[in-house]
Structures are given as C-alpha cells and as structure tokens.
C-alpha cells in the first residue's frame, strides 16, 4: 500500500504559500479541519483565497484567519455568523463571492472529477447568473458553472488509514469528500489514524487515491455553534 502518512501538521502543510487558493471542508463549525486552520494561522501566509461553505465564527474556524487578515477572498454560500467578516466585507478589505450551496458542492465535485463545467438551474434569472452562459434543456433554463483550481484542499475525517482512505461521521461529512477529490494536494486530518487494513473497505467514503497527505489530528475542540436540546424531563 502507498503510505500517505506525514508526521504532523507542519509537514502536512509544506509548500503552502501566500496567495494560494485553498478548499476547506466543513459546514458551519461541523467537520472543519481544525489542525490545518491552526497551522495556517501559525504560518502567517496571507492573500489567501478560501473556498469553504461558511467562514467560521469570530474566534473559531476560518474566523481565526480572518482575525489575522490572512484571507483576501472568500468563496462561500453563507457567511452570516461572523462580525469580523462583516466588518472586512463592508470596508472592502475582503472580497466575497457568494454562490448557491449546491452549486458550490457540485463545483468542488466537478473539480475532482475532471469536469470543467456543468449546467445547473440554481440561480437562473438572479444576479448569480449575471454574465454567465445560460442554456435551455427540456424547456427549463440552466446556468453554466465552472470547476475550481485549488492548490490545496484541507479536509477533516473521523477515521483514516495509512493508505489515505477516509471515513466521515454524521453531518461532519458535508463538503469534505468532494473537496478531498479536488485538491492538487489534499491534506486529510483525522481523529483516528489506523493501519491500512483496519478499516472495512466496504465502509470507506473516500478512497486513498484522492489523498496526498494524512495525519493524526490533535486537540479537537469540535465546537457546537447552536446547541439545541430537548430538556430531560
């Protein structure tokens, strides 16, 4: 088996430079690559373009990179949970490209699947479609959307093995599988790293072929954004 393991997050992010385009998995704070984000803060790289469904909260997730003004452009579907984000966006420091969530997911998938562009009905007739090619299929209008071209994809999985195979848990899966497929270099951080052969091949969500580097993550906070519960009665 090809061994994808790197020692630690420092080694996993080798080659990361200012001005690069990254994909970062996660929905809200669920399934975000906490270790990789922490290392990006440490590396003090800036002028980054970050493709991620959300932008974290003020003091967690991508909010940590925003605080240090390391992000030049965000490509997201929903960004409402972050005051610093709002300030930078309104002052023009931060460029923001808002795109429909399903279009974002499919653009990530297309990137990894060798599909340069595809038609989707989402956003037709809205400002999202302005300047884009449109076409009618079966009496319905569609908008042409393109794949991305990120240098790195940072994803978080529940379990992974030394061959780079990944299994996700719960709704922490979200954008991580498509982004794992899309990175020129895909870095996977996992809660539990095991030897090749220990994961059931039937249960693997992302085959190791898509993953260039994998490491055992540490100190996961896994913060809950909206804690909603049914009281014990």
């Amino acid at each position, binding site marked *: 088996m090809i061994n994808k393991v790197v020692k630690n997050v420092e080694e996993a992010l080798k080659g990361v430079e200012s001005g690069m385009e990254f994909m970062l998995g996660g*929905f809200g704070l669920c399934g975000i690559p906490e270790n990789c984000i922490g290392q990006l803060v440490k590396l003090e790289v800036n002028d980054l373009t970050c493709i991620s469904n959300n932008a974290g909260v003020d003091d967690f997730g991508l909010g940590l990179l925003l605080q240090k003004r390391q992000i030049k452009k965000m490509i997201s579907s929903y960004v409402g949970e972050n005051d610093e984000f709002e300030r930078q966006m309104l002052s023009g420091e931060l460029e923001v490209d*808002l795109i429909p*969530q399903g279009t974002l*997911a499919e653009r990530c998938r297309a990137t990894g699947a060798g599909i340069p562009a595809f038609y989707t*009905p989402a956003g037709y007739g809205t400002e999202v479609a302005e300047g884009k090619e449109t076409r009618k299929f079966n009496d319905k209008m569609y908008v042409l959307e393109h794949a991305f071209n990120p240098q790195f994809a940072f994803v978080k999985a529940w379990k992974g093995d030394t061959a780079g195979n990944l299994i996700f848990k719960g709704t922490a899966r979200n954008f991580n599988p498509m982004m794992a497929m899309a990175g020129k270099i895909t870095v996977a951080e996992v809660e539990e790293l095991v030897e090749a052969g220990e994961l059931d091949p039937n249960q693997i969500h992302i085959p190791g072929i898509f993953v260039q580097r994998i490491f055992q993550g540490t100190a996961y906070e896994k913060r809950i954004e909206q804690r909603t519960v049914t009281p014990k009665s």
Partner: protein
Amino acid sequence: MALDKTQIAQRIAQELQHNWYVNLGIGIPTLVANYIPKGIDIEFQSENGLLGMGPFPIEGTEDADLINAGKQTVTILQGGSLFDSAMSFAMIRGQHVQLTVLGAMEVAQNGDIANWKIPGKMVKGMGGAMDLVASADNIIVAMMHTNKRGASKLLKKCSLPLTGVGCVKKIVTNLAVLEIVEDGFKLLERALGVTVAEIQNATEGNLIIDGEIPEMKL
C-alpha cells in the same frame, strides 16, 4: 384573527402527503415538523447531509457531528441516512424531494421569490435556497402577509434581488392561503375572522377572488 407563526406552520402541515421527503427552511418552516398529521409518514431532509432528521437531542446527548442546516444540534431517526453535500443537492436538483417549505421577504404574482439579499445591508448569502427553489416541484412559502412597516409582501413584481424565478406554487401567510395561478394570487382560504377585504388591502399583487372564500380549519 390573523394566524401566529405556529398556526402558519400548522396550516402548512396539512399540505404534507404520505411518503413525502420534505425540506424545511429556517424559521416558521422548521415548526411544520411539530404538526405532521397522524398516519402520515414523512422524512425530513436537511441539506447539509441528513435524511430522517429527528427532534433536538435530549440534553447531554448532543453531538457536534450531527447538526441541521441551521447549525442546530439534532438527532437522526431509525432508518435515517447521512451523505455528502453533492449527493444532498443531487436529491434536491434531481427532484427526489417532494416539498420545500421556506420563508420569503417578497413573492411576486408570477411565482418569483426574493429571500436572500437586501441591497445596502449585510448580505449573508443564499445558502441552499437558490438550489431548492430552482428545482423543487412543489414550493410553499411561509411568511407574514406584510412586512414590519406594513407593506405588502405579495407583489406584482419583486423589488429585492431574486432567489428564483417563477417557482413558488403556494403561500401560507398570517392572513390567507394563496395559490399562484397564471394571472396572480388566487385566494384559497382566509384566516378565521379575517375578511376578504382585509386580505385585498394587504395584497399589492393581483388578487383573484373566485366565489365564496372558506376559512382555514386548524
């Protein structure tokens, strides 16, 4: 009496049909899950990657890895399933989800909907709303009939940036149930004690009143 938000949700729940997969937006739509009619099997889809969404977890059992599209901790029912975002939107775009219920700032009489952006104000993004409205066969809007300033939200033409074009089928407001037909909003039902004249007053778009309009039954 105009309906409150809970009653709007209750009325929308009457639209649910046996064996439907349903996506509920944030706000009033979320409340619909509390009023599923007896004997009807429904599975709720949450576009972040969950089918068979259950209620909020019992205090102490919440899991950071199990949330809904509003980022709230939830549970998964027996027989539920988990998937990635591309598959989730394949379900939506591929019309495997029978009903989408969502809120709106404005609806036009041709079925256009605006619910994601107010120019000059902080724009949070459309999330999955544009994908949902572009694809769903059956879209019900849950909203107040007028905005906070008392202006109608049922218009000839939307003034705000659109989320989708010609897609809304039905609207349930605090005053009425309306259906989008070729030339306007067809009034189907009115809230208990609300007159047709009151609904007409609160509707800027073309209101079609055909015969006696029954009161809603909740």
